[in-house]
């Protein structure tokens, strides 16, 4: 599952733009559990790409974000356990999280019209720059 690299490039591009030459002291990345991102690969890719672009980086912290789905039809909220999901389905959702709508349904009313309240994919939670680099 090395499409993490493609997502790392997107994040690196974003960080580079935001950093405007400043070193990044601290970065917190949230990993939505729905997308089953391989943390090691993402971390390796991100550090590599940032290094290539001469963006200095202190610490990168990863936090898992639990999957919470909420049905728009009946309001039911549930937290599916991705570990119990069939491997091929997990793989599909890994590539395009919206594939979830073709596999998951509201356990209460059967509706596929639910919202991903949290835990979809990768996002940057916090970025601290070193304003006065030595």
């Amino acid at each position, binding site marked *: 599952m090395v*499409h993490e690299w*493609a997502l790392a490039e*997107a994040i690196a591009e974003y960080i580079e733009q935001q950093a405007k030459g400043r070193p990044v002291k601290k970065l917190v990345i949230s990993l939505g559990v729905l997308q089953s991102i391989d943390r090691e690969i993402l971390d390796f*890719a991100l550090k590599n790409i940032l290094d290539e672009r001469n963006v200095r980086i202190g610490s990168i912290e990863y936090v898992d974000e639990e999957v919470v789905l909420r049905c728009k039809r009946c309001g039911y909220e549930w937290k599916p356990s991705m570990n119990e999901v069939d491997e091929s389905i997990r793989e599909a959702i890994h*590539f395009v999280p*919206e594939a979830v*709508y*073709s596999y998951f349904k509201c356990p209460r009313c059967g509706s*596929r019209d639910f919202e991903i309240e949290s835990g979809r994919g990768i996002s*940057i939670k916090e970025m601290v720059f070193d304003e006065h680099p030595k």
Partner: protein
Amino acid sequence: MNTQSDPRLLVIPQRLAGVKHIVPVMSSKGGVGKTLLSTLLALAGADKKLKVGLLDLDFTNPSTHIVLGIDPASIQPVEEKGVIPPIIHGIKYMTLAIYTGENPTPLRGSAINDAFLEILAITRWGELDYLFIDTPPGLSDPQLNLLTYLPSRIEPLVVATPSPLAIRSVEKLLKVLIEGNYKITGLVENMSNNSKLLKIAEKYNVKYLGSIPYYNNIDGLIGNLEALRSSQFYGKIIHILKGIIRA
């Protein structure tokens, strides 16, 4: 969300950098032949030894794979710092159906946008002469994603039938494209025995790429590439492709 705030938007231009022409096949009215046209244009391009890609953006009802006669769930795209689209009948091909199979996939606008950004951010098209895009009907999230996020890259091809119901809707689409200064590839008139829409093309100063008659037998050929290739319909497609290449 503006055009800066989502990291995925920042890599999409790079993913498409090797593509010479991005041609979304569009119509605000449904059922006019976008899927058939986009898929066969890609096939005709591949037959002509052009480097072509086909992207199915009709996420809630992907159907280009039906024209190509393949089972999308059986496709395993190669991963290499992203997703390398599989080559189907000489076409680099990407569709959400690879991941959703034949399951129903109802999506709200926000989910359509997320799927759009995700697929475009991870797919490495490489070098292409043409990337044809099948789009769903309408003028809403799926179409606006193309118009807003790839304004200077897309060269829309507009399809319409000569029905009075379709003419009004094609004019609205053309207005939006002209107001936004898009480079329009041209207009195709489908299921028509004359050139009724030539007037519309002239009115909006777009290239009239030709008209395709209504062929009774076409549904019987879908999914059968050899039969499609030897059909009169395909002859028309080749003619239209030549017009696109000349443009």
